[in-house]
């Protein structure tokens, strides 16, 4: 019974599949197809040759372009612009994460900072007592740090006479090798120094940039982690200078 069912099913499928039989009169044109086959083989070889050339040209360009200082500079500016834009958008969206100015009672004494600047001169925080000091921890590879630096240059120029001093403490592993050319390219006019793990630990630096504003009595009045709007810095500096 089962066998007869299977035979019937097979016969039915054969009938259904027979609907797909091409007309017996139809014969594919082998000669024309062979011509098409040859033509497409030739065009495929040409196509492959063109692709090889294009890939070779792209490789040469890919190697040569990054070797040119103009393109490197352009790429750096693009990165800076992207970082700046992202930061502005982030700042606009997120809630204010600045700590604000601590009350006089809540301020802790700033750990001593005793480092050498690019000329070998000693930079000591205790020697700057009586001034408002901005201590900025940064690194050359840190995008947001590079966004802030022109602001600090500008703020230093604007408030120098009223008693503001900026100190940039770099945490670059290779020290002056990276920092010296970077500072020259960025036209940084305030003192820079190379920090180490001991200094970073003393100040509790976990992220870059981290910026402290020290009041005239050597106490930390403001601490910021990450990028903060320039206007915030300016308001805080002005307020601490006025104390």
């Amino acid at each position, binding site marked *: 019974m089962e066998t007869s069912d299977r035979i019937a099913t097979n016969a039915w499928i054969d009938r*259904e599949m027979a609907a797909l039989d091409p007309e017996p009169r139809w014969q594919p044109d082998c000669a024309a197809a062979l011509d098409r*086959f040859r033509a497409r083989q030739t065009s495929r070889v040409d196509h492959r040759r063109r692709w090889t050339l294009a890939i070779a040209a792209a490789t040469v360009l890919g190697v040569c372009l990054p070797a040119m200082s103009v393109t490197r500079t352009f790429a750096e500016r693009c990165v800076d612009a992207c970082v700046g834009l992202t930061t502005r958008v982030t700042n606009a969206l997120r809630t204010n994460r600045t700590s604000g100015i601590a009350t006089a009672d809540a301020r802790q004494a700033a750990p001593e900072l005793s480092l050498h600047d690019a000329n070998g001169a000693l930079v000591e925080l205790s020697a700057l007592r009586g001034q408002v000091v901005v201590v900025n921890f940064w690194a050359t590879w840190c995008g947001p740090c590079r966004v802030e630096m022109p602001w600090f240059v500008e703020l230093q120029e604007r408030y120098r006479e009223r008693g503001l001093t900026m100190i940039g403490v770099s945490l670059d592993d290779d020290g002056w090798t990276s920092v010296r050319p970077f500072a020259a390219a960025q036209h940084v006019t305030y003192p820079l120094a190379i920090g180490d793990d001991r200094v970073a630990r003393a100040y509790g630096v976990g992220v870059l940039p981290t910026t402290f504003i020290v009041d005239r009595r050597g106490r930390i009045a403001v601490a910021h982690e990450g990028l903060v709007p320039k206007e915030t810095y300016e308001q805080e500096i002005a307020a601490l200078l006025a104390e």
Partner: protein
Amino acid sequence: MPSDALVVTGAHRHQVDLEAVFIAHYARIARVVARLVHDRARAEELAVDAFLKWSSRGGAKGEQAAGWLYRTAIRLGLDELRRRSRRDRAERLVTWWHRPAPTPEDVRAASDAQRRVRAVLGSLRTRDAEMLVLRSEDLRYDEIAVLLDLNPSSVGTLLSRAQQAFRQEYVRRYGDQ
């Protein structure tokens, strides 16, 4: 080091071999693809595509070549069938609110046995569809085994399963007719 003349001769011989295989198998492969693709010109185009793929891979020889070509051509045909089916579904979806009244030709085509069988084949597993198409081309079990790279003793079982799968899918779609 071979001379240029020898290299040219070698390349020429390779091309002659490719074309010999083309001439030997093209017509039948195009007819097999035409079972899956309604448009004959398109079927011929897909058959040429299969040969181009084969030649760009160095062109296997002998029975291996035939098997590879038949499998590839049928898969290209099934891909075309499935692509067309997806496109038809999308077009039906897009135009359902202002679809013109079906013409007698549309009605005839919709109930066309060919269309139904192709729709069912397109929804089967590729191996099942390959077996049914080759069987409908009157190939013997041993020929199917060679073309699909199967053990000849298992062809009967696999074909039977493919037929069951076809039957079930057909009944599911169109009822027991």
